[in-house]
């Protein structure tokens, strides 16, 4: 017992020492945390290690690379952006710790692009209580669009229900009369996606689910094969898309696969499938950002330049494009918020709307709408390359129709940095 108290005293002394040494915290020049005349400090949480890190671990460094590019060209209103990336290994308990560290200790101005539904859901209340802007969450959950409950939280991704509706509309037109089935992750991702699909197609012929802790989808695909499915819609993360394609081939099951954007990045799939990459041929998916392989696209040209100059020439894939698109949209928001930067000004700037960013689908931020991109364009893999086809489609997560969206995409400014509004 006595040793316990001794230990406690020693620790208390140590704690008190650190308290004296780091009392100052982050740079607070004015009243706004994380903002000085020369700097803006922004933080994020991402899985950099562990099983969930595949693909995702490239996003935040790409965002930082874009910020470095902006900083090298004079910053935003004379301020340089520092992006602090915290590894949460996709564990919600760790997310709690690192987000509190960012907000309470480092005193970040905002949290940007925190990744994951279960992980980020846990910190919503904390961020609201501390009035921290929570911009462009990296997940397609509908939870981010609750302006009354969480006025500072905004989405970025197309939500899973919208995506399910758009992909199902394609199936309805292109694969009329075929038997449509579903395999999805056993959480909001799978459920919301299926809800969208069934809004358009009615009940699917067969549905199966998987959990990430059991990497064998043999029984599920076996059941779909026996049910005579001709189209299989997948709400899967990239690893399980690859696994599903491989397993289906193994048992001689060759339906048309229609895959959520979340799990359809062709470079990730090709890398993982290796010699079996031909299995991706004909795969249908959708996206709302320029594809990394589209060299003619001005955004891709810009992002490739940034990648070479500031990202240590990381392998250029759609995750890098995503990270930089997030960075661009954030800089655009900062520019609009103006020289006198406060948290309220930033949120007002985003709600004012009118942004397009690098995406070509509608972005309709307003005081009553905090959801991310509201539509997608279909992609198909042909000759090992993913390419867009058809119109850009938009819809809502309710019963609204799926319509074509005709506004042309924005072009990046010549210097690659959004202008001040």
């Amino acid at each position: 017992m006595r040793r316990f108290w001794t230990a406690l005293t020693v620790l208390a002394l140590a704690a008190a020492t650190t308290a004296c040494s780091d009392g100052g915290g982050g740079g607070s020049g004015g009243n706004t945390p994380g903002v000085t005349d020369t700097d803006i400090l922004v933080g994020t949480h991402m899985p950099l290690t562990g099983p969930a890190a595949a693909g995702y671990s490239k996003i935040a460094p790409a965002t930082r690379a874009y910020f470095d590019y902006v900083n090298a060209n004079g910053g935003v209103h004379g301020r340089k952006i520092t992006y602090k990336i915290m590894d949460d290994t996709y564990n919600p308990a760790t997310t709690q710790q690192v987000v509190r560290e960012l907000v309470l200790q480092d005193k970040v101005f905002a949290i940007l692009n925190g990744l994951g539904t279960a992980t980020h859901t846990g910190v919503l209340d904390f961020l609201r209580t501390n009035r921290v802007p929570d911009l462009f969450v990296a997940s397609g959950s509908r939870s981010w669009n609750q302006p009354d409950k969480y006025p500072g939280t905004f989405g970025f991704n197309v939500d899973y229900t919208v995506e399910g509706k758009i992909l199902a509309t394609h199936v309805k037109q292109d694969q009329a009369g075929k038997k449509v089935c579903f395999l999805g992750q056993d959480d909001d991702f799978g459920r919301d996606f299926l809800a969208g699909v069934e809004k358009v197609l009615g009940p699917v012929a067969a549905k199966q689910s998987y959990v990430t802790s059991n990497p064998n989808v043999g029984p599920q695909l076996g059941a779909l094969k026996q049910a005579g499915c001709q189209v299989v819609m997948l709400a899967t993360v990239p690893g399980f898309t690859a696994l599903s394609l491989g397993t289906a081939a193994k048992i001689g099951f060759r339906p048309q696969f229609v895959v959520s954007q979340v799990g359809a990045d062709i470079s990730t799939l090709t890398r993982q499938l290796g010699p079996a990459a031909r299995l991706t041929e004909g795969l249908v998916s959708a996206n709302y950002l320029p594809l990394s392989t589209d060299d003619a696209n001005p955004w891709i040209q810009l992002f490739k330049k940034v990648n070479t100059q500031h990202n240590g020439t990381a392998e250029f894939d759609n995750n890098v494009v995503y990270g930089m698109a997030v960075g661009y949209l954030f800089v655009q928001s900062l520019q609009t918020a103006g020289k006198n930067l406060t948290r309220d000004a930033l949120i007002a700037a985003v709600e004012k709307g009118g942004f397009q960013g690098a995406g070509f689908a509608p972005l309709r931020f307003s005081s009553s709408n905090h959801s991310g991109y509201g539509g997608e364009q279909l992609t198909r893999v042909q000759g090992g390359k993913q390419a867009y086809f058809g119109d850009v489609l938009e819809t809502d997560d309710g019963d609204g129709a799926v319509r074509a969206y005709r506004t042309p995409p924005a072009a990046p400014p010549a210097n690659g940095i959004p202008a001040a509004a």
Partner: protein
Amino acid sequence: MDRFVFLTFDGLSRGAVYAAFALALVLIWRATRIVNFAQGAMAVATAYAGYSVSAATGSYWLGFGVAVLAGIVLGTVTERVVMRFVDHSSPLNEVVVALGLVLVIQGVLGMIYGNEFRPAAAPFSRDAFTVGGVALLSRFDLFVFAAVGAVVAALALLFTRTDTGLRMRASAFAPDVSRLLGVNVGGMLTLGWALAAAVGSLAGMLVLPTELGLHPNAMDIVFVSSFTAAVVGGLDSAVGSVVGGLVVGLLLSYVSGYLGATVAPIAVLVLLVVVLLGRPGGLFGRSAARAV
């Protein structure tokens, strides 16, 4: 009926890879009386080495050989450099050091290769032969069965028919007496680690093509399933670990197929409770777990 046949073969081919890895756990348990929690991470590390060589030379089998060889080296180094210096008064010290090793290996692999999935190629086709529209086994599954059978036979020979095997078992059970009898106990421990790591690497090369791919954490879940398999079969029995592996594989397949994938871990827990309450030393263990 078709469904049952399909799930049975799916479960057997899964079970075979669990069995392969469970064999490595049994080997090190028999040789050193510890459960090597780092076995999975070590196998992944050697698989990375193997696939790097395969990629550079274009030869799968060269990479395969390198992986197994790397296993021997890594096992030897781990025992000589780290495990030998761990205080053995509490078996938990070894467990904690092994867990530390897992983190080091995963961190280093992440630094070298990145935390991305990489393809883990199989030497034979994974397309299953189908009979009457029902997919049964692939060439690769047959290769796994053959390899597991060969390892079981080799281990049985080693431990029951050779002096070295006898010395290894003696060193594990009674190190002090063995030392007095002139057995090179330290050498036997090193040998045990080297052999177990080699079997682990071989198992890794069999398991990884059936998983999501090559990743620093690729064996985490396999470790849990295989450890379960080894416990069900009895950690002292090579045959037990094969049976345990097949039982776990079949159970996971049936439960996922008939009840849903989410229920599978609950079924595994129930299996463990039922087996261990009946036989506290596993199916093939000698039931001497209780003294009185």
